[in-house]
């Protein structure tokens, strides 16, 4: 994997197509406690976008607002210009089809085999017959390097394999956007690197927009086209840009410290 590759994602000019994800003035609360406020950013089509920050800064909370598991106190989330936050049930269902999520624990349904796990979104949202669904399942599992594991249960797999199976499920409907919540959590460095390579390969093959919540510096520097950094005290975004540039020349010491692990060197 080339660490210094050029990203092809550019910020669009006026009149261009709306971004894949547009977040405007988002406020996330738990009751009266404001976790994040004034969150605004855009993710372009095909971009590998990271949400970074220290533990407890609200990364996963932001992700849960983006995917509709939590309702924002204020602000909107738009997918390709369509309002997701205030969408009615039918529109929301249509938008849900356009993104997949890989959860921190993979969240595979433990009573179902990998084939059944990946096939469920296809059963729910496509008109494919059984044979066609099985072929798609086989393709998806092959894409993540799990060909031949169709009949395995999640409990029979290692942590890395479970993550890859979770990714296969997230990709089942060929979503335009895939969200990842701490994909490297609980994985050894080699497995984590392989997962990074897989993410990159899928983006390059299918042009999928990837939004990754992580604090793994190796993954951030290897994969990220752009990052936003959240901070617990600021309750919002304290930096936005390319990770190497932020690490080398950001004015905020918190950003440099995070990206250099306090060593001030990348």
């Amino acid at each position, binding site marked *: 994997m080339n660490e210094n590759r050029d990203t092809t994602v550019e910020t669009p000019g006026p009149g261009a197509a709306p971004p894949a994800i547009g977040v405007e003035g988002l406020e996330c609360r738990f009751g009266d406690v404001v976790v994040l406020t004034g969150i605004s950013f855009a993710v372009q089509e095909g971009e590998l976008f990271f949400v970074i920050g220290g533990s407890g800064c609200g990364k996963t909370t932001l992700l849960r607002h983006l995917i509709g598991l939590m309702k924002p106190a204020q602000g909107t989330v738009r997918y390709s210009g369509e309002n997701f936050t205030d969408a009615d049930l039918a529109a929301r269902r249509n938008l849900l089809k356009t993104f997949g999520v890989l959860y921190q624990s993979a969240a595979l349904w433990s009573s179902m085999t990998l084939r059944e796990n990946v096939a469920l979104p296809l059963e729910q949202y*496509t008109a494919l017959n059984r044979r066609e669904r099985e072929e798609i399942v*086989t393709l998806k599992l*092959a894409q993540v390097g799990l*060909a031949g594991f169709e009949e395995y249960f999640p409990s029979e797999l290692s942590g890395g394999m479970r993550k890859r199976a979770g990714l296969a499920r997230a990709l089942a409907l*060929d979503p335009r956007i895939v969200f990842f919540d701490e994909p490297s959590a609980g994985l050894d460095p080699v497995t984590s690197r392989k997962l990074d390579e897989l993410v990159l390969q899928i983006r390059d*093959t299918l042009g999928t927009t990837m939004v990754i919540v992580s604090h793994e510096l190796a993954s951030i520097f290897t994969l990220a086209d752009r990052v936003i950094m959240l901070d617990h005290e600021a309750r919002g975004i304290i930096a936005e840009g390319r990770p190497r540039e932020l690490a080398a020349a950001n004015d905020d010491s918190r950003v440099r410290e995070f990206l250099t692990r306090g060593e001030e060197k990348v």
Partner: protein
Amino acid sequence: MSPMTAVPVLARAETIAEGDDLVVMLGGDWRITGPLPAWRRVRGDREPRAVRIRADGLERWDSSLVRFVYEVQDWCREAKAPCDSTALPETVRRLVGQLEQAQEKRLASDHSRNFLTTVGLAATDLWRQTRDFASFVGECTLSAIGLVRRPGRFRWRDCLSEMQQCGAMAVPIVSLSSFLVGLTLAYTGAIILRQFGGDIWVADIVGLSTLREMGAVMTGVVLAGRTGAAFAAQLGNMKAGEEIDALETLGIAPVDFLVLPRLVALTVMTPLLAMYANCLGIFGGMVVSATVLEIPPSAYWIETQANIGLSDVSVSLIKSVVFGMLIAVAGCLRGLQAERSAAGVGRAATSAVVTSILLLIVADAVFAVLFNVLGI
């Protein structure tokens, strides 16, 4: 993949016959969630000698296109017709190749078993389960001996908490079920006895069958469903959360720490609940006798006292102690054997109830024979 167009054009696959060859022209927006052409319909009843795939009008595509091309190529292989797909984007061809390889791998791994293998595996599994159960009972016995030797190390607080959970908290459901069973027995007995003018003997039927059979069995069934399943679910969850591993690495035997307090609690509380259930059962019979058969409660009570003895009470007590032990052992064993997943915990709870009730019925039958031989 090309950028999304404002107005998506539906996926299409059109054909042109060129002599004996068939040209398949793919176009439009191929979305797996949208309407898709089917190769069977596209081909119709034609049997081309060769197929050529073109993709001039292709806009956006996903796995649905890959699968379609795979189906075309699969048909061509079977029909021994060459398939030219070089006009497709390189990524599509690569993914089709990946799907072909994966399909071969999938079809090669046949998981089906023949009848004899299934029977053999079931027999091996039954033997393993029997051995596990015997071994677990042995561990519990050793742990109980340890408790007698060093009672100070026993988790009394956990035991009392479990007693409250499986005993006091079960009183309402035990009350209802045993009262209704007594009521039902009285009604059933009255059908025959009234024909002979022997209404009063309803008290004997209800008293004897409640004490010797129904009180302990009904309490056992209720506790198997309520407490046995709860034990399995608690321990199964603890296993899934590596809590049991944490105990073992600290050198604490899970049987001493988790199983014995539950075993003692249920062994103590089941006979108490069974005695209570017996009283409620007899009371149920009394209510029916007083309201339907017009037998005064005093006459009913005198008849009951005259025909039930200490041996009947002992039978109920002995049975309920053993039932309590069996339910606790089955619940805890299934919990400790649970797979480390949500589904595993669910299966453990179900299995605990099934095992408990099965053991309870077997033990009840053994007691029936034993008490008959001993003349109790």
